[in-house]
């Protein structure tokens, strides 16, 4: 992974991870908890940027760690623990989005998704056109929300590569290893995702001036 990945210290992390994994395998729950604490921000950030909803992202992140815990026996150390965990997280996010799109539209606000794969409307989002939206009042948050909204419109596999590279700061090679893709595929998906996002953000960037 590229240096500076948010939330994950880099120095000797791989060795320490390996030790913690060994201890966790022997039933030391505290060792696994240390791994959870080390990677919770990374996994949660990925899930949040993929699904756009905090509660759903927390559910996904919890499931990712549960899967990892249950799969520790199968982790042979061929790759780094982090790469293995990122792979679980990435694929779980894609599965969650796929099952979300299969789910029939739920009217319940408690439901997690609408037919279009976006979050269902919240009362705070349902003000009529022209009315002062709650979020419009807050200029500071506008840009992040707009970016998140446009990000959610990208194809999921493109979105994933874009998040791994430009938000999580991973190197091409590790993205390729995590997702099981060729380097060229990673690059082409990333380029298409960036150009797509640029086109989608264009009106906002023009109106808002410098982003």
């Amino acid at each position, binding site marked *: 992974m590229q240096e500076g990945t948010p939330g994950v210290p880099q120095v000797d992390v791989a060795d320490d991870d390996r030790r913690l994994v060994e201890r966790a395998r022997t039933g030391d729950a505290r060792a*696994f*908890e240390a791994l959870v604490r080390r990677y919770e921000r990374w996994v949660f*950030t990925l899930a949040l940027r993929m699904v756009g909803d905090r509660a759903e992202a927390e559910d996904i992140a919890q499931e990712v760690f549960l899967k990892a815990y249950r799969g520790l026996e199968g982790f042979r150390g061929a790759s780094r623990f982090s790469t293995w965990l990122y792979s679980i997280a990435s694929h779980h996010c894609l599965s969650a989005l796929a099952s979300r799109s299969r789910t029939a*539209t739920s009217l319940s606000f408690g439901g997690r998704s609408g037919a279009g794969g976006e979050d269902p409307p919240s009362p705070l989002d349902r*003000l009529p056109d022209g009315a002062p939206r709650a979020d419009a*009042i*807050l200029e500071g948050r506008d840009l992040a929300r707009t970016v998140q909204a446009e990000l959610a419109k990208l194809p999921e596999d493109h979105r994933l590569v874009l998040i791994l590279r430009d938000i999580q700061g991973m190197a091409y090679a590790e993205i390729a290893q995590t997702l099981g893709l060729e380097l060229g595929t990673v690059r082409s998906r990333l380029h298409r995702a960036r150009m797509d996002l640029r086109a989608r*953000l264009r009106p906002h960037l023009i109106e808002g001036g410098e982003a």
Partner: protein
Amino acid sequence: MTCDEARAAFTDLYDGTLSGSPLAALSQHLDGCPACQAEWAEFRKAMRALVTLGESEPSPGFAARVMERIEAPSRWQTAIQALFFPLRMKVPLHAAALVVLLLVGTWLLQRSPEIRQAADVRVPAPTARQVVPAAPTPPVPEAKTAPQPEVSAPTGMPAPSGREARIARREAAPRPADVPPKTAPTPSIPEGAPKVEESAPRKEQKGVTLEAPAPASAPAPVLPARRAESVETASKLAPPPPAAPARREVKDIAPALTGAPAKEKEREAALAMRAAPAKEGEVAPQVAGSADELFSSGATAFASRDYPKAIESFRAFLAGHGTDRRIGDARFYLASAYLAVGRHAEAAAEYETFLRVYPNHRQVPTALYGQGEARLLMGDQAGCQILRSALSQHPQAREAAAARDLLAARCR
């Protein structure tokens, strides 16, 4: 280098992986092409905007919650192992359980003719040579006979076989006290309580007209909600019953059938009976339709963001079907639809009613946030306190982030 080639290299340029002659060629192109220069500037802006999203932290205690989920099954396993693992305990326990089950089963079979009868019904229909003599229908004086339920199958449904029809007729008729019921009666109906009888096998339920010949003083029947639902559906599809003192509308017994808390139903029914216009001078909705039609119409309209239509449908639903089990949902959606169209006062009022009548409804967190927002937007600073309360009670709700923003903007 063409413009397309130049733009295809933006990602490499941004990542700093271009060098040598490709970099020189791209730089030269950008220097001489204002369109590509503008594109490149936009590209960088978009990337900077993306980076502003940054990382996020899960809510406090996330790791502890993960560990709770991880450790929970092992605690169960430990407990089960402690109980059953020693073979000297496990074998006698299993044997004893088996004996108890057998005894209970035998006792139930002997004590309960209903179970035997239910088993009989599943026996394949007899052939012509094995005709089972039908039990004589008890002669009931015409004047005392309750109206016979309709047993004809609805259009498109297979007509019941001769034996099924006989059974259905037998069961639909009132029985003398000493004649055991011919099919399994609803076990949860207490003796002496009015019985909602299914006059045909379950497949033919939709054609049944409901009979409730019990005296008014009898306790209300308590049935599982699913059964109530099917009975309710049956009653809707049946032709309208003629006026007869022995008949009772399904709606009258619906609260008991659904098993919902009686007080909650009564409060909601009283609210629905009043069905006060939401706005002064506004006429209460007169939209005709069954509960299903109105709810479905409201739900569809809400989902497609046709909030005025949703308001109309849900208001009609509330006014006409005050005892329906979806009444809480309807009120919640009505409130949310009001909020969506900027009718903040009505939204606040409906949310308030919803929260008062359905304090345990699953939408309470959303309603609380909605009420706070509605109050704030109608200029009532009480909304600030409501939002703060919502945040302290439901900090994980999806509306929490926007509520914090609203608080910061409006509640200084």
